[in-house]
């Protein structure tokens, strides 16, 4: 009896060891299988452009879907100049409220937060809320057209084909809120349900697999006509399957160039038939300012509202690239030349509310800036840094949680750069700090110019020679200030370019510096011209201003709130429903900005 005890113990130990070894064997086999591919072959769904949802395509690629959806659940993070926390850029950089005065961006501009959220953000932004804009002094704006949706929705190719019947101009010219009502319900969701309105397969769905991949072989392709047209104008050859003829290496950059570019809506000069809404005939439905509603700012057809056919002025989404030839680095002067050439049909995005200058708003021109940088020259694609190769388990994959390379310097940079992560991070920080210093210098200089133009407008308006019928004559004043207004337009185009570009100079530090040097030069030249104008008109007390960080902080607009009662919202109520959107950036970021201009090397260089 007594000597049986150890034997039982021994048996249990050996059984446990066998179990352990079997587990190890299983682990070895599993990793061996994973490393040669290991794609699960069961439950394979057939992918097609009829259902572009990432939920459906992701069934075949669960690991990639998981990566893509990381941003849905992860806690948003800030980097020094980017990240994916949607804080208010107007709170961080209050000077933007002056630079964009008279344009809806001056009341709502948040840091962007990942491809998954892109359509959610477009539906939520105050810039796409006509009633809110009406009630806040932007009566001239009618809300966004479908042209804006080109990059925001994975449904774009489907809607263009099935709803707009391949009429590209008609698609772009339709109201955004009318087009979104046509997104079909798939994956078992009910028409008009909460899920149908959501991001998973529904109307709030952002970028999808299908936007960059071909369904039958997952090769890379371009799906957006604006990108294909623009590349053809640059000298690429059209291709039925992948958009333009290009190598896979080039495609790893071009698929990103479908959207990460400067663009504008070119008026075609012709009327076009598009879908309208029957709400236009319902005299009981009025906008906030009492005028007749022409569409319902909601994502489904409701309360008897039905599609109708209307005629509107045609617009087309265009990238201003024709001066930028294939294989050349981009230069900002190419935009000057381009926008000068089209001035007869498109003279401005908006008229500046304070200076009166005809302004061009630049938006996220990553493709342009990157093209002349050292990484582009060495054949490094967008995907190489933003979608680096990573290991998931034993599988080698491309990262599909597309984000700042700062989130994973090891995978993004160290594939080519042997130095330590700390060293690489310090290099990036140095480039970004110096660009940010230059950008702030340019912005403050342009705000100073705008302030002085305002002073000059008032002074000129008080002179009899610039009046008609006892009032200041805007036309006469504009003529006198023409040269200064052009300098304002061009200087701000340059500062805006670097401000809207998502790398704070990193994509091409030299070109960023050159552009910002020009911007400062032009703004200060504008002030010099104003002094000449003051002298010529006998205005004795004119002085130029030189505003800085503290002056800008006084312009802090705070979070967006309703100023009046609109659409069941009370005055004073916060506009955004989600706390993490449109809030303040962290104090550390503001403190960092404070030290950048003037450049406090004792703080900045020690971080």
């Amino acid at each position, binding site marked *: 009896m007594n000597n*049986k005890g150890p034997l039982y113990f021994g048996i249990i130990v050996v059984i446990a060891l066998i179990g352990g070894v079997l587990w190890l*064997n299983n682990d070895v086999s599993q990793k061996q299988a994973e490393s040669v591919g290991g794609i699960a072959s069961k439950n394979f769904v057939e992918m097609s452009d009829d259902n572009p949802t990432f939920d459906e395509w992701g069934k075949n690629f669960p690991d990639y879907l998981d990566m893509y959806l990381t941003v849905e659940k992860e806690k948003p993070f800030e980097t020094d100049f980017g990240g994916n926390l949607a804080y208010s850029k107007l709170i961080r950089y209050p000077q933007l409220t002056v630079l964009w005065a008279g344009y809806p961006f001056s009341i709502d501009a948040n840091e962007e937060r990942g491809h998954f959220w892109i359509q959610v953000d477009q539906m939520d932004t105050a810039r796409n809320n006509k009633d809110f804009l009406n009630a806040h002094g932007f009566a001239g704006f009618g809300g966004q057209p479908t042209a804006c949706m080109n990059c925001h929705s994975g449904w774009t190719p489907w809607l263009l084909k099935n709803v707009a019947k391949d009429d590209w101009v008609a698609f772009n010219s339709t109201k955004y809120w009318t087009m979104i009502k046509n997104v079909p319900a798939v994956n078992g969701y009910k028409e008009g349900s909460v899920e149908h309105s959501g991001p998973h397969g529904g109307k709030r769905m952002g970028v999808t697999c299908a936007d960059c991949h071909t369904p039958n072989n997952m090769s890379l392709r371009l799906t957006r006509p604006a990108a294909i047209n623009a590349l053809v104008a640059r000298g690429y050859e059209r291709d039925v399957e992948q958009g333009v003829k290009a190598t896979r290496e080039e495609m790893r950059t071009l698929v990103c160039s479908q959207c990460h570019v400067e663009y504008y809506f070119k008026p075609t000069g012709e009327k076009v038939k598009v879908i309208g809404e029957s709400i236009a005939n319902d005299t009981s439905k009025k906008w906030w300012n009492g005028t007749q509603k022409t569409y319902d700012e909601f994502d489904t057809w409701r309360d008897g509202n039905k599609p109708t056919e209307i005629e509107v002025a045609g617009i087309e989404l265009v990238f201003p690239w024709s001066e930028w030839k294939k294989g050349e680095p981009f230069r900002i002067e190419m935009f000057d030349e381009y926008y000068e050439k089209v001035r007869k049909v498109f003279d401005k995005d908006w008229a500046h509310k304070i200076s009166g200058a005809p302004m061009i708003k630049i938006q996220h021109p990553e493709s342009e800036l990157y093209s002349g940088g050292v990484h582009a020259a060495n054949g490094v694609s967008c995907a190489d840094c933003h979608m680096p190769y990573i*290991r998931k388990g034993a599988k080698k994959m491309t990262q599909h949680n597309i984000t700042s390379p700062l989130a994973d310097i090891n995978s993004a940079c160290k594939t080519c750069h042997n130095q*330590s992560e700390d060293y690489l991070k310090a290099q990036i920080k140095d480039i970004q700090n110096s660009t940010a210093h230059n950008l702030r210098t340019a912005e403050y200089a342009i705000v100073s110019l705008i302030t002085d133009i305002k002073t000059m407008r008032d002074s000129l308006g008080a002179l009899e020679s610039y009046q008609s019928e006892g009032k200041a004559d805007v036309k006469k004043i504009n003529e006198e200030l023409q040269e200064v207004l052009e300098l304002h337009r061009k200087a701000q185009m340059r500062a805006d370019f670097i401000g809207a570009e998502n790398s704070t100079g990193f994509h091409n530090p030299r070109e960023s510096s050159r552009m910002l040097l020009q911007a400062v030069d032009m703004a200060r030249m504008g002030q010099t011209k104003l002094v000449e104008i003051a002298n010529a008109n006998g205005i004795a007390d004119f002085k130029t201003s030189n505003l800085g960080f503290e002056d800008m902080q006084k312009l802090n607009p705070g979070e967006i709130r309703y100023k009046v009662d609109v659409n069941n919202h009370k005055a004073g109520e916060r506009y955004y429903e989600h706390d993490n959107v449109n809030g303040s950036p962290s104090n550390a970021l503001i403190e960092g900005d404070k030290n950048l201009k003037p450049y406090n090397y004792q703080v900045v260089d020690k971080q």
Partner: protein
Amino acid sequence: MGQKRAFTNLFGIFLLLIFALFAVGFYTFYNAKGISYFSNSSESCNNCHIMNEVYNDYLAGSHSKKVKGESRASCADCHLPHQGMEKWIAKAESGLAHAYAFTFKLDELPTNLSATQKSKEMVQNNCIRCHGDYAAVAVNSTTNPHADSSLSCVSCHSDVGHKRGF
């Protein structure tokens, strides 16, 4: 009597299980290509998928070029000591550490690896072992291991083994 028989049966089961343990143990060892790790061949280092990129780079480099059917240098020629026991101790040490990391810590490993101090020293010694004769002048003047800012051979010849000079 009954008790003794029960004991014998139990002992039989114990022996059977020991045999089974050896059987699955050997099979697992075979499945994990355990024997290959006793060889000097570079292919065995590439058993592990984590080495694919480096291995491909090595194949494109000068050291993998074959002379009389043998590579000029294998992974082990540069990355392990050459003296008898020292080699096997280093091999066992890194082998066990690698096996542990791949089994339990695969998700924590960085995409791009960096060499440890120990590994750098082994590589440096191996450079000198083969090239010392005619590189002695350079080695003696620039690679003094006791000087703080001394260079190693791969400081300059970083692409020699594989393109990624870790």
